[in-house]
């Protein structure tokens, strides 16, 4: 279930140089990545980075301008109904029909989805104390979010896509919402993709990571492997990039020393010990923040970023 199985099972998502243009602006470009089935993936990036573009293409609300995309093997050329059946979607702000009752929303779900599981929908609203007769406009923000989530889960699709699902919720509602998502993923093999621009909370939810800035993928792969492949080095200020045992991702210079986040090349040996050098493991949030701050036009580095992130013989998870 963790990390390394891309063999055998059809990946939940596979893209190959996927791109989408709006007029003359590319919302997403040269996106190549893979998300295996059963993981909970975090899609991180600032607003406007291309997260919603990527998600809408995955769901089938948008067509690619170039490149390929497949969800559990169904490409963007497959019949629409087949594609739509695979993804449960909770959009930002949890859109629902305000004049409908909760029961009406479920009726809609049943009418528009052959795979609808009404028992599941009823069980969830029952457990959450949400009355079926209540109109959506009378629900609290947290309850609306839960109803939206129920709509997506009752569809029984193998992939669940959440676009910034908790950004409009208060802290308690946030916790309740994510509890339900994690519980739904446990033991069912559900694949989840969560888009967010709040990095600090992702570590507990995600075991797969995709960092997106300026329409380009900066980092993609299993969270554990990525963290293991990076080191935070403390080195003398005068050290040049070439002397570093890996690709520098982010560098902060002080008067006498520099702090450099490096990605160890799979071929190179582990950080070499040198006087005045210190190597520390990188935290999840540090890693993501470093990649978020890189300039987005690093197309050449994207391929190496993913090559390093892909599970390989030298990048097994290190026990701390």
């Amino acid at each position, binding site marked *: 279930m963790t990390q390394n199985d891309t063999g055998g099972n059809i990946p939940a998502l596979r893209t190959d140089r996927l791109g989408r243009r709006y007029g003359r602006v590319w919302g997403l470009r040269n996106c190549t990545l893979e998300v295996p089935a059963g993981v909970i993936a975090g899609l991180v990036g600032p607003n406007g980075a291309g997260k919603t573009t990527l998600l809408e293409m995955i769901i*089938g*609300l948008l*067509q690619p301008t170039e490149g390929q995309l497949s969800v559990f093997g169904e490409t963007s050329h497959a019949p*629409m109904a087949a594609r*739509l059946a695979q993804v449960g*979607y909770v*959009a930002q702000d949890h*859109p629902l029909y305000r004049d409908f009752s909760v029961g009406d929303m479920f*009726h809609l779900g049943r009418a528009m*989805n052959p795979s609808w599981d009404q028992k599941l929908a009823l069980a969830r609203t029952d457990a959450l104390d949400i009355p079926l007769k209540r109109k959506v406009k009378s629900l609290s923000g947290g309850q609306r979010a839960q109803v939206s989530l129920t709509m997506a889960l009752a569809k029984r699709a193998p992939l669940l896509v959440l676009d910034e699902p908790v950004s409009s919720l208060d802290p308690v509602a946030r916790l309740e919402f994510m509890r339900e998502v994690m519980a739904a993923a446990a033991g069912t093999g559900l694949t989840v993709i969560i888009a967010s621009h709040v990095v600090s909370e992702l570590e507990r939810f995600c075991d797969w990571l995709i960092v997106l800035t300026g329409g380009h993928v900066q980092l993609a792969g299993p969270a554990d492997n990525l963290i293991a492949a990076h080191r935070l080095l403390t080195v003398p200020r005068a050290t040049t990039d070439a002397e570093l045992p890996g690709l520098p991702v982010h560098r902060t210079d002080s008067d006498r020393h520099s702090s450099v986040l490096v990605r160890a090349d799979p071929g190179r040996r582990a950080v070499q010990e040198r006087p005045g050098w210190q190597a520390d493991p990188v935290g999840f949030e540090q890693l993501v923040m470093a990649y978020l701050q890189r300039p987005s036009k690093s197309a050449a580095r994207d391929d190496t970023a993913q090559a390093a992130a892909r599970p390989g013989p030298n990048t097994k998870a290190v026990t701390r």
Partner: protein
Amino acid sequence: MIWVSWRQHRGQAIACLAVLAALAVYAILLGTSMRTAFGHDALTACLARSQGTACPAAIQAFTNRFGSEVNIAFWSVVLIVPGLIGVLVGGSLIARELEYGTWRLAWSQTVPRARWLAVKLALVTGGLIVLGAAMTGVITWYRAPMDRLTGHLQHNIYDFEGLVLTAYILSAFGFAVLAGLLLRRSIPAMVAAFIPWLAIRLVVEFVFRDHFLAPLTTTVNCTQVCGEGIGFVPQATGRIGDLVLSINGNVVTYQPADRFWTFQFIEAGIFVALTAAALGATIWLLHRRAA
């Protein structure tokens, strides 16, 4: 999907029924009153004998009493009502989903959006046809006594009887649905659809209608009743129901009363074609955006 479309338009359907009910109440009251007066004044017998020339005073009294609904103000209001119904129903059909972001919900279910739209349009169009037919029926019923004096080729009356009322509603609806997709906002869509609809409506009525078929001419000896317009019973041609276009000395150019249905088919055909074009364009554009 049929249930979903119905549930989404349930409110509008109820509002339309209310309008129809109000119209029916008005119609029943006025219609019954007219029938009573018609009988009371023995107008039936008079019309059986002549084309109205035998009882001008009775006719005058009747039209004075019930003719107010054909004055300009009333007519202006009722001109725009079918257009209003059409744009109010159509403007928000797609636009509201785009405005409120519910398109993300609606079009990510397992129904491709082209089918979603097609079912919705079929249901709502069907509903509007039923509404138009019912309104036409109610109006035709209540106006029957008056129509025996004026015929229904006259400009005001023609607009509410036969087929055109339904066609007006449908065309306004079609324009508004298309505008809703293009403008993505309900109210601007309603306005943007209403204006061209009204323009076309007026142009068809005042420029083209009188000449759908080549008018006929006849020579008459004008003594008393020789004028154009709805107030004259009978018309200058000597027959009730003809539409007089112009009088030049003794020559009267007119459209005969029996061309009513032909003209109705032609005009309804124009507006139905416009409806089909607008809705077809909408479906095609929506399908293309998904692709």
